[in-house]
């Protein structure tokens, strides 16, 4: 089932309550949907549209603008290698080439077993540890080819499960305060 679960519908309602205008909760709710399924299924897009009183096309239109929102399935581990200027100056393209060989896929594609999607990305603001990469948006710096191999082995073996949740899980801390009471500062209009 790729509609939002009951729990995630409640999370969506909590998010909507935080904003003066419901549509502002769209991207945060899409992150919740992506956490549930690893990507944005058509059913989830439709369900999110219902929750916000938007059309699926409006949701789709917003979602396609953003690099982190996927409208097609992604591997369990999204490996994002930065090749922007600071990383390039420190060997990022060599790292990317190594990663492509090691995983057996070109940047932009997913391994046959669905474990890894490899992508080349713009600066991820970890340039002090160039070359660097992110796995499901958990950052790893000063990544040599050897370190990359170790990282892949660890991820395959599930050794980093605590630090690197499955793809789609962004923020594991939930807002726990002032949720239903967000009405106290609601604008009167």
């Amino acid at each position: 089932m790729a509609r939002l679960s009951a729990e995630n519908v409640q999370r969506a309602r909590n998010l909507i309550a935080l904003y003066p205008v419901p549509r502002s909760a769209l991207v945060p709710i899409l992150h919740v949907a992506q956490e549930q399924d690893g990507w944005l299924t058509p059913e989830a897009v439709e369900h999110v549209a219902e929750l916000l009183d938007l059309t699926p096309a409006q949701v789709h239109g917003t979602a396609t603008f953003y690099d982190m929102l996927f409208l097609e399935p992604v591997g369990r581990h999204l490996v994002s290698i930065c090749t922007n200027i600071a990383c390039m100056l420190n060997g990022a393209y060599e790292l990317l080439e190594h990663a492509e060989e090691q995983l057996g896929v070109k940047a932009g594609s997913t391994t046959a077993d669905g474990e890894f999607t490899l992508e080349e990305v713009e600066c991820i603001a970890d340039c002090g540890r160039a070359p660097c990469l992110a796995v499901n948006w958990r950052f790893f710096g000063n990544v040599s080819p050897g370190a990359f191999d170790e990282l892949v082995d660890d991820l395959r073996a599930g050794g980093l499960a605590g630090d690197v949740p499955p793809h789609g899980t962004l923020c594991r801390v939930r807002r726990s305060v002032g949720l239903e009471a967000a009405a106290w500062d609601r604008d009167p209009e």
Partner: protein
Amino acid sequence: MPLTDAPRIVTARIGVPESWRLETYVANGGYEGLRKALTMPPEKLVEEVTAASLLGRGGAGFEAGRKWSMLRKAEPVYLVVNGDESEPATFKDHMLLENDPHQIVEGALITAYAVRAARAFVYVRGEFALGLERMTAAVNEAYERGFIGPNILGSGWSIDLVVHPGAGAYICGDETGLLESLEGKRGFPRIKPPYFPAVYGLYDAPTVVNNVETMSNIPWIVLNGGAAFAGLGEGRSAGTRIFSVAGHVKRPGNYEVEMGKTTFRDLFYDPACGGGIRGDNGLKAFIPGGASSYWLGPDQLDLALDQDKVGQAGTMLGSGSVVAMDETTCMVRAAWRITRFFAHESCGQCTPCREGSGWLEKVLRRIETGAGRDDDLDLLLDVCDNIAPGLTWPPQQTTICPLGPSIPSSIVSAIRMFRDEFLVHVKEGGCPHG
């Protein structure tokens, strides 16, 4: 060894164990600025910050106090903190979000009180998973302790603060792109006028947009006074600032230094900062203020980190990112990579930016891979001149937002400074650097 005896203002707690927790923050003087601010009239706070000459740390360098004074008189007012940090080689806000979230919360609360905002939002770049977790946890803690929420510290003043995740798009760092994004839409920048955030911002209400580092300075300014802040630095470039030092230095990292009194040479060579160029190589050129800025050569190393002086030198301090490129660097490749970034991030609304960035990227790639033509240099400059006529600094604006006119900076710099290198690429059919 600090370079000058200026205190560390925004990085004071970086490196303190569990610096992101409320207990640590409070044990180190946290939330005292808010306590004091709530005893002051809001106008007085605006005066203090104006007296401080706090220039915005997000890129454009506009005075924070003046920005707060320029709001259209209407209700509600909103505060939006810009934590989208995506300018290539800038990584200071990422550090602040992860390591000192309460300082951002406190700065935002004081600012919200000063401008009488109805609600505050912290827009955090989507990719910053840990930053989002730390910011969210900080809001939970601060709310439980009564720093956020109704009747804050018994003052009768109430506000909520919402942490909002982005989803990956550089253009959402532009303040109007960010507001569109915060409204749940594509991050298309808005046309100014009329859409200056202070006039028609979030939900068309008057809105203050300030950078994460800008906000982080506010508690210190309230506690120590605007004059104390203005006493640091030089002239308008007051206080200290974090510079993200990257590229070919021995010790890349974020360094908070006194503005105006510190130089690019200090950032690259001082043992307390970059520690020198890797392998003790020569420095070929450096990028002084992010991918959007014109480059400088080693002859400019003694230029002070002063917003106006760097402006007079024909470029900008921008986002506070400085990138060293040593003598082994292929300048065609460097310009190509930055251009590719812009081509990827152009939101596509304006023809010069959307089409120009793609053409420039293709021509640069062709030169770099050895398929360049004799007239390619003229072609590059011609396309650049179409995007930012005159190729001056600051650039002429032909587009909705400043992204488009920033595209020529690296290309024009590389051609002006290293024309021979481009010619060798074309003549010899490839890169002499291998």
